[in-house]
């Protein structure tokens, strides 16, 4: 037999009256903190503080401590010189792809002296994957998992709902958004907490375009630390502007938030460890092959002259419309495979600060990496085509706008 909601509640009430006794309710400290962190007056400053801590820990642990403090020394000091020495066939095509493409100066073959410039699969590829991305991803997911298991995320969702509802989403969209700062792939999965196709489409499109992943953030912290803030600013602004537009043009409903706000609780370490391990390992199954493959493909494309050809072809758009050097065409091709790789490539191209900023923003908003692409295809090819169409428009428009802003500010 099945009951309707009213009958079910009646039954529950009479059961409860037999089995539960409520003593005097003591308001606990947890309740008090719970309320403080969800009330706008106190909750919003706390949320900003939490996000700021998140970011500082991320930057100082991943960037300063692990990458600069350990991996750069390891890779540049020992791994690179050793490989350059022992690998046979210096200057040959296999050497260029796997170890070091080097550079020709006055007709002389010069080896690179660091792993950002060598660009071999076994040097830069491994360095980016292990030295830069691994620490970034681990610390990111650790903090996110803690915030989740403590029970903070629903409160953040409530606080940010007002704004997100204006772009057709609701507060819980903060979960895929933040998850996406780790990796876009599981974030696409997490769009499931949104109710309608419209919401999921908007969310997926926005995160594919505007949210840089942890790998990208890690490498940005590493190669252009002074510019990361500005890059993020441009991305956040874009997220809201284009979200607002999408909400207006995409048909469908945008239901409101309806969530439980749980009590805070102590996270269980075994649980955190398991979740962390799952997230990091599944990230690496996706990331490492693509980083290495990315290196191979890009190196081959350079060797056969394709990148130069594409650069020349797109030069008018790049130089005239986006205001960046035509050499950035190469990184943009690489970005399709791995965006972190692309940022690393950009960092060794000669250009002004503002050009660098524009180029990094472009790489970020330009195509999602192959893995995200595949994930979105799983959601439906119509959505994917829609997203790609939006993306093309956004890259073109926003790239131009950024250039224009730079010109107006007199820095481009």
């Amino acid at each position, binding site marked *: 037999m099945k009951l309707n909601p009213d009958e079910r509640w009646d039954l529950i009430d*009479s059961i409860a009256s037999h*089995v539960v006794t409520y003593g005097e309710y003591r308001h606990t400290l947890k309740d008090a903190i719970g309320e403080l962190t969800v009330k706008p007056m106190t909750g919003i400053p706390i949320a900003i503080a939490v996000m700021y801590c998140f970011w500082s820990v991320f930057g100082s642990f991943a960037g300063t401590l692990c990458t600069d403090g350990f991996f750069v020394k390891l890779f540049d000091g020992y791994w690179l010189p050793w490989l350059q020495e022992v690998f046979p066939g210096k200057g040959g095509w296999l050497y260029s792809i796997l170890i070091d493409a080097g550079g020709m100066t006055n007709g002389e073959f010069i080896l690179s002296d660091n792993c950002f410039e060598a660009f071999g699969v076994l040097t830069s590829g491994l360095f980016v994957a292990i030295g830069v991305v691994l620490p970034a991803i681990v610390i990111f997911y650790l903090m996110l998992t803690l915030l989740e298991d403590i029970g903070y995320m629903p409160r953040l969702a409530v606080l940010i709902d007002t704004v997100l509802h204006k772009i057709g989403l609701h507060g819980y969209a903060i979960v895929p958004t933040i998850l996406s700062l780790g990796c876009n792939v599981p974030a696409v999965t997490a769009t499931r907490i949104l*109710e309608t196709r419209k919401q999921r489409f908007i969310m997926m499109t926005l995160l594919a375009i505007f949210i840089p992943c942890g790998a990208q953030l890690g490498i940005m912290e590493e190669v252009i630390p002074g510019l990361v803030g500005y890059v993020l600013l441009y991305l956040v602004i874009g997220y809201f502007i284009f979200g607002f537009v999408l909400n207006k043009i995409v048909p469908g409903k945008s239901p409101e938030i309806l969530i439980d706000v*749980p009590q805070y609780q102590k996270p269980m370490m075994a649980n955190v460890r398991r979740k962390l391990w799952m997230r990091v390992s599944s990230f690496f199954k996706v990331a490492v092959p693509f980083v290495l493959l990315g290196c191979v493909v890009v190196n081959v494309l350079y060797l056969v002259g394709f990148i130069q050809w594409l650069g020349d072809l797109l030069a008018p758009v790049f130089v005239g419309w986006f205001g960046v050097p035509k050499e950035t065409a190469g990184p943009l091709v690489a970005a399709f495979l791995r965006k972190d790789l692309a940022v690393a490539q950009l960092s060794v191209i000669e250009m002004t600060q503002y050009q660098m900023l524009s180029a990094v923003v472009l790489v970020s908003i330009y195509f999602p990496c192959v893995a995200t692409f595949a*994930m979105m295809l*799983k959601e439906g090819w119509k959505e994917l085509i829609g997203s790609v169409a939006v993306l093309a428009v956004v890259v073109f428009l926003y790239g131009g706008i950024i250039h224009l802003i730079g010109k107006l500010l007199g820095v481009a």
Partner: protein
Amino acid sequence: MKILLMGHPNVGKSVFFNRLTGANVIESNYSGTTVDYTRGYMSLDGKEVEVVDVPGTFSLDPKDRAEEVAVAMLKEAKDAYVICVIDSSKLERGLYLALQIMEEGYSVIIALNMDDVAEDKNIKIDSQKLEQILGVPVVSTIAIENIGISKVISRLKDAKPVDVEDITVMRAGMNHRGKCGCT
């Protein structure tokens, strides 16, 4: 035999799951969707039994994709045993879901989890009486401290389908709208 672990989000379901299965867990994708769930194995009377950590849901009337999957997973496993994990401090809400699952004809066992939290809040639940009334095993647990988990396992065999109409009989004389002729 298959065991489904169901309950609201944030009732310590995944901790409970960890306790039941140990380290050997598999993250899977529910076919045709982007909803992931975890499953693992536990040994019961020397046999390996599959345990599925179903995505958290408040009711069987889904309000988003994850809840839809939770409901679909339940409906697919017709002969599954369901461990319904309830937050003891929010018994009524939890029973709402538990009753819905029982109405679908599943063998249910109820874990009154976070017993310590309820105690902190001065809420006392007579789990034996609840068991008598509902006719399904009811066990108090604190999954985070590994309390009551083995009892849940040992009582699994007592779980059996219960017609909610029989529960209605138990409360004769109380204020209710009579035996309903509902669907």
